[in-house]
């Protein structure tokens, strides 16, 4: 299911005190793809994604979710179906847990969207398995779990609604490396299951590895919409101007390019980068000196 944003603007307040947050946004979140939204804090990313499931209504323009059009005049009653189709995982979603057992909490969404108890339970169990929560925890209180486990339960709570599209706002924030990796795997699984995924992230390595399309936000406007292999070809200054990091392999490759290296394509990972470096050096001629200048930082 694609989501179309057409001429979207959004402001708080009215008249002279109105604060413009989003200005003339046009973009399409393609069905079955991963769209990353990046930009510095305060650029409007979070406000933008809250329009995708009608938590905020546009001040101007419209958002088309599947076959439903959301405008400033859409009635509260018409928003339910939109929210059933677009799941939203906020930053630190573990803060939304409330029920007395893990299973009940995960069943909350499906039940609200009209599933009966049995259907909701089946969906909840499926979602819990998908996020790797073992059955032994299902009857536990969510508040007895570790931070990482709570995060999974919260994710399951949105997955269980079986939405066509899912929005993740910094889903990996605060997780340790293993937790982050599992989360990225989950996003890829969702894509494989033909779900539409929107990801807000500050971690450009993730964006490069996962996204099909990147939306760069700045000051409430779209600064660029491109595939990552295109976007990260831009020069360094552009990223500085937009307060964005470069993925580490890309940044390193750009450094080496200043020293005569050439890269056929954007290195997507460390392995990719290493492969491209390998074939540009005559390794038989490389001898290892015993000590390298500056190699040992303490001496």
């Amino acid at each position, binding site marked *: 299911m694609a989501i179309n944003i057409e001429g979207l603007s959004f402001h708080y307040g009215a008249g002279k005190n109105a604060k413009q947050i989003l200005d003339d946004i046009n973009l399409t979140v393609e069905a079955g793809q991963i769209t990353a939204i990046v930009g*510095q*804090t305060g650029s409007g990313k979070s406000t933008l994604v809250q329009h995708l499931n009608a938590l905020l209504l546009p001040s101007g323009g419209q958002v088309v979710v599947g076959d439903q059009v959301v405008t400033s005049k859409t009635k509260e009653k018409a928003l339910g179906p939109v929210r059933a189709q677009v799941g939203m995982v906020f930053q630190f979603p573990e803060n939304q847990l409330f029920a007395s057992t893990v299973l009940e909490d995960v069943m909350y969404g499906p039940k609200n969207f009209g599933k009966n108890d049995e259907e909701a339970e089946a969906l909840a169990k499926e979602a819990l398995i998908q996020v790797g929560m073992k059955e032994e925890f299902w009857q536990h209180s969510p508040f007895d779990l*570790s*931070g*990482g486990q709570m995060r999974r339960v919260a994710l399951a709570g949105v997955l269980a609604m079986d939405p066509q599209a899912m929005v993740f706002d910094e889903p990996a*924030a*605060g*997780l*340790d*490396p*293993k*937790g982050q990796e599992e989360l990225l795997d989950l996003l890829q699984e969702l894509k494989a299951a033909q779900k539409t995924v929107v990801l807000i992230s*500050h*971690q450009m390595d993730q964006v490069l590895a996962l996204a099909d399309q990147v939306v760069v936000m700045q000051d409430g406007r779209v600064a660029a919409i491109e595939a990552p292999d295109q976007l990260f070809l831009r020069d360094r200054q552009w990223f500085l101007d937009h*307060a964005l*990091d470069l993925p*580490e*392999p890309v940044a*390193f490759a750009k*450094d*080496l390019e200043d*020293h*005569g*290296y050439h890269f056929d394509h954007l290195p997507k990972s*460390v*392995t990719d*980068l*290493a492969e491209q*470096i*390998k074939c*540009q*050096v005559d*390794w038989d001629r*490389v001898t*290892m*000196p015993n000590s*390298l200048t*500056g*190699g*040992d*930082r*303490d001496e």
Partner: protein
Amino acid sequence: MTNAITINNLTYGYPDQDPLFHDFDLEVQEGQWLSIVGHNGSGKSTLAKLILGLLEANSGTISIFGQQLTIETLAEARAQVGMVFQNPDNQFVGATVADDVAFGLENRQVPSEEMPKMIEAVLQQVGMADFADREPHTLSGGQKQRVALASVLALKPKVIILDEATAMLDPAGKSAVLQTLKDLKNQYQDQLTLIVITHDMAEAALADRVVVINDGQLAFDQRPQDLFVQGQALKELGLDQPFESQLSQALPKAPNQYLTKQELAAWLSTLKD
């Protein structure tokens, strides 16, 4: 060298759970920059709370500059050890930046007329002097953490513990906090002992010594450059190897020591003619 912190035979566990630490030993020398790393749930934050007496050990001893931590010595220990916590919002006591820095000074009964100068000075150190009258909800996470650092600095501690202080920050906030730490360490040198608890390897790389905690045990205790070359071992502990170490190990030949990104790039550029 004196020990800033000495931990001997520490045993601690949350009620109804397996002990998190069992016969745990650790010494931190004065003036050291130590990183404590480990995956979530490895016990690293618990250790910080034990050192500050926010939790009480089941057995074993913790000494701060040779003075064993007990109920009687707690106040004195806390006068020497400051701590910055993970959540920027939950440690901001004052209604404005200046009031927050003042909070600790007020507790220490610093005379009112001396406070403004001290507050101004520490806010200067963390680059937040222009924000003295701002309220916390108008600040970014990184700014709040720098205020937290200033609040700690105002009390002139000999040891500062940062418990995942950058985990909830965006990259800009994170690098601002880390830069502030580097500046402080440069300024105070051996007068300041830093203990940085993290799972971010770039943050750990700033330290002179890294301790890896796994299941309440010391899994590693090395210089960062010696730790980072051990890719497989780190992975097994649920930790990342820094990018530059990953890259040099993926190359056919590389110096068998840790190189920073700049060093690695410089070396590679000599190979290309």
